[in-house]
């Protein structure tokens, strides 16, 4: 029961933060006069968060193979953190997905149509698709942030451009439903044959 309640809460929270909350735009020079320790702390937190993401990405890319000792404190800590995140976040979302995915009307027909479109495409098409649907929106938003904050000293268009991040999120949701539709039905049809 906790899975369905927590799952619905997470989905509602995502919808509210992405679509409902209106973000005020700031001119950072105007902000300077009313700059409080709280705002500085939030801004510093944002920078530290990205520093942590950089470290994590570097770890994933280059150092992962060097630190695979399962007895190390870092490994155990990472396992515990991912376990907690699974219980609080991923398991409820997965439960909601498993509950609703098989019952979405017309979804299998839609995925079958997508399959007919993609049937004769080569791997270059899929790399382009992934780049356009996942990487490009993120890079555009980050570039707008850099240009605006360094050159213009404001974050007006950056906040508007954040809506672009709905594209990778929607694509990931689509991919999840697409894959699970295939996997769910694969075993059903496999049973018919030797």
């Amino acid at each position, binding site marked *: 029961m906790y899975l369905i309640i927590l799952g619905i809460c997470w989905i509602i929270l995502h919808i509210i933060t992405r679509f409902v909350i209106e973000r005020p735009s700031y001119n950072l020079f105007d902000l300077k006069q009313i*700059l409080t320790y709280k705002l500085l702390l939030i801004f510093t937190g944002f920078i530290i968060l990205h520093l942590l993401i950089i470290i994590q990405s570097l770890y994933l890319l280059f150092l992962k193979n060097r630190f695979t000792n399962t007895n190390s404190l870092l490994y155990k800590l990472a396992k515990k953190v991912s376990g907690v995140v699974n219980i609080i976040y991923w398991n409820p979302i997965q439960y909601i997905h498993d509950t609703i995915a098989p019952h979405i009307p017309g979804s299998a027909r839609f995925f079958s149509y997508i399959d007919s479109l993609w049937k004769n495409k080569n791997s270059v098409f899929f790399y382009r698709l*992934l780049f356009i649907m996942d990487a490009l929106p993120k890079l555009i938003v980050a570039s707008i942030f*850099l240009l605006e904050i*360094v050159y213009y000293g404001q974050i007006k268009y950056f906040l508007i451009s954040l809506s672009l991040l709905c594209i990778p999120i929607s694509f990931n949701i689509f991919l999840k439903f697409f*894959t699970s539709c295939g996997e769910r039905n694969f075993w059903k*049809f496999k049973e018919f044959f030797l």
Partner: protein
Amino acid sequence: MNDQNQPFTDDIHYVKAYYKVYKFEVKDENVGKIDGDYAADIYLEVERISRWGREMKEDLAKISPYISLLTSVIYFVGGFYRIIVIII
């Protein structure tokens, strides 16, 4: 590929997909209960869908750290520069 609506006559079905030809043999208990050609077509289709989905997820997992690294460096540089300018 046979017409999907054509009544099946035996329990062995041949389905052409791209440049390959697959041979499917229906289990004895399902003979006469399912349309073998249609089921074989759908079986190939769902196999393709799940494979594509898995491969795209794997490819995304491969490129994601690079994208995260790049965007985070951009956010870090921009944010750090601006906070220094504001404080000074």
